[in-house]
């Protein structure tokens, strides 16, 4: 029994003795909020009218918390909280740095948009299946993955978001969904298992799972331990998560089967968690090994981009086209990781942020187009411009942003990446970026021409009965388009933030300092 003792014991060797400032709770509060709200939503599962009233304010609070977190990190640098007062590396640390906070904030914005859209889009059946509790758990997993400072904990957050994504994917249990979910579930499970193997080997080499601890020991082990093999395993696992080229086939097989708002969340968030983990592990923990493997990553990146764009060209189904557009975006982020340096990684981070917003917007837009036009097929769609001019305007913005044309947000990360690629002489990588953007422009331009601009085909002359416009549908789309506009016209803030995030990844002194303020218990 832990009875109170009177004998003095020196606890300072094992425990954090300084009182924790309230602001440090920002790093843990987003996950706590999401898990708590998810639990409450599970408890009131059958009072469907309450779901929206709990979930939407919760997501607003998540955005605010993440914004405060980002503000604090940008002002004062990274900070850490270690669970249970144990000194790191023994306790599980949560560390917020610029990269994690940026990704968390943008993901929260996207989740808020999707949550509002779901108010109309998810009917009572979907709610009874638990859309909103699963959304909360998904956001807990995503945010936790961005903010954790412990690599096994990262695995656990991956599993949390994976389990909730399974639930979301088969929401409604349609036959097509079960087909897609089977492939998605098996391949993603293999990816996380590979990740677990890598974590096991990592622990065998380093004897620690704390990322800051690994980062400061990586140099010492690089000559003696098979770190390149380990990094290759990590790359394979994360590339599978992120749907990079040789292991991307699960994405177009499954992402078009769930409800469109679920697909929007997945396209925006899940693959980006994979590339985030890739950046965190390869750039911060194993920079030397990233250097050695950069050619492999670059080839995979170039192929991912081109395959994604070519796939988008060949699709008749709008949702599958969007799935390939997601893959093309992943290629660009991977290219940044392969280039390395502050410019390359900064470009990758910027592209990931842009891609989170743009892909969610793309899926929501495609959903709107199909709702108005009554079909997912390019063969039969047409004339949306006449029916919904504002949606068409949004489509114009989103397509240009996705293809990376000015004046929207897709342009800047591509410019940063191109310049970084040319600076290190990887002309073929920059060529791949340009080719991919060109093909994607054609694919998206064709969608615009066929689905929005041309008159409705004769055999489809009767307009599909479409439900009336609702602010729950248009407001999130408008918000995301506004974000794309804003980042396109005022790129200074995101560019400087992402460059700062890349700099702190490349030189994690401040990160390590925040975990081991006194230099650590060596």
């Amino acid at each position, binding site marked *: 029994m832990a009875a109170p003792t009177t004998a003095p014991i020196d606890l300072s060797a094992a425990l954090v003795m300084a*009182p924790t*400032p309230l602001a440090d709770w920002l790093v843990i509060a987003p996950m706590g909020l999401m898990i708590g709200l998810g639990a409450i939503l*599970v408890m009131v599962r059958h009072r469907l009218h309450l779901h929206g009233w709990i979930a939407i304010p919760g997501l607003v609070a998540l955005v605010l918390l993440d914004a405060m977190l980002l503000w604090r990190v940008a002002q004062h640098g990274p900070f850490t909280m270690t669970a249970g007062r144990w000194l790191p590396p023994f306790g599980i640390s949560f560390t917020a740095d610029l990269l994690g906070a940026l990704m968390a904030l943008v993901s929260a914005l996207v989740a808020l948009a999707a949550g509002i859209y779901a108010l109309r889009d998810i009917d009572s059946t979907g709610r009874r299946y638990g859309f909103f509790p699963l959304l909360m758990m998904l956001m807990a997993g995503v945010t936790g993955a961005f903010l954790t400072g412990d690599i096994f904990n990262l695995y656990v957050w991956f599993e949390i978001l994976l389990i909730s994504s399974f639930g979301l994917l088969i929401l409604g249990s349609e036959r097509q969904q079960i087909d897609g979910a089977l492939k998605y579930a098996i391949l993603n499970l293999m990816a996380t298992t590979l990740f677990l193997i890598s974590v096991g080997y990592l622990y065998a080499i380093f004897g620690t799972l704390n990322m800051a601890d690994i980062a400061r020991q990586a140099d010492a082990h690089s000559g003696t331990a098979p770190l390149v093999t380990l990094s290759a395993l990590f790359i394979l696992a994360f590339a599978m998560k992120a749907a990079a080229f040789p292991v991307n086939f699960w994405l177009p097989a499954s992402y078009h089967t769930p409800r469109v708002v679920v697909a929007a969340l997945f396209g925006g968030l899940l693959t980006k968690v994979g590339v985030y983990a890739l950046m965190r592990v390869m750039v911060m923990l194993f920079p030397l090994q990233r250097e050695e493997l950069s050619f492999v990553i670059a080839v995979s990146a170039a192929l991912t981009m081109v395959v994604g764009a070519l796939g988008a060209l060949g699709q008749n189904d709008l949702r599958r086209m969007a799935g390939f557009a997601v893959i093309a975006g992943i290629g660009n982020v991977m290219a940044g990781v392969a280039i390395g340096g502050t410019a390359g990684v900064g470009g990758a981070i910027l592209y990931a942020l842009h891609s989170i917003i743009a892909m969610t917007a793309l899926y929501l837009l495609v959903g709107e187009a199909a709702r108005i036009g009554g079909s997912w097929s390019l063969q039969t769609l047409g004339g949306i411009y006449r029916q919904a001019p504002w949606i068409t305007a949004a489509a114009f913005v989103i397509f240009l942003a996705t293809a990376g044309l000015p004046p929207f947000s897709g342009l800047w990360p591509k410019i940063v990446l191109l310049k970084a690629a040319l600076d290190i002489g990887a002309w073929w990588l920059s060529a791949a970026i340009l080719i991919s953007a060109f093909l994607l422009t054609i694919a998206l331009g064709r969608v615009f021409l066929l689905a929005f601009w041309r008159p409705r085909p004769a055999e489809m002359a009767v307009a599909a009965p479409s439900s009336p416009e609702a602010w729950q549908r248009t407001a999130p789309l408008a918000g995301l388009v506004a974000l794309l506009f804003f980042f396109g016209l005022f790129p200074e803030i995101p560019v400087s933030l992402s460059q700062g995030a890349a700099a702190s990844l490349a030189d994690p002194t401040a990160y390590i300092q925040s975990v081991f303020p006194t230099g650590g218990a060596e």
Partner: protein
Amino acid sequence: MNTIILRTVAPPITALMLVFSVFVLLRGHNEPGGGFIGGLIAASALAIYGIAYGVAAVRRAIYFHPMALAGFGLLLATVSGFLSVFVNVPFMTGLWIYPSLFGVEVPLATVISFDVGVYFVVVGAIASIALALEERESD
């Protein structure tokens, strides 16, 4: 599984297992045991009751939906982790109080409430799966 032997034996066994699960839950604080294993025992108790008397009887007996129990447990565990915000120590630090009940000092901690939360999560989740499977069997 509608035999008279099982139907006679099931209520005492269920009651015994539920008591034992609480014992294991509380014992887990310093010795082998804990919320997870306790929850599993309780869930299997409910499953046995369901096999003997049917799923409807179990649902009536536990009153709340099993998923609601799981949600409650998750909430309890989360709140236990967050109580340490009030005493300026990091997340999930164990906080102890030592109230005196009938002259016996009873150490209580957020660790215990966290474990109780785990217990409820496991009971709720496993019981809802088990009950769903048993229901499927009957039709």
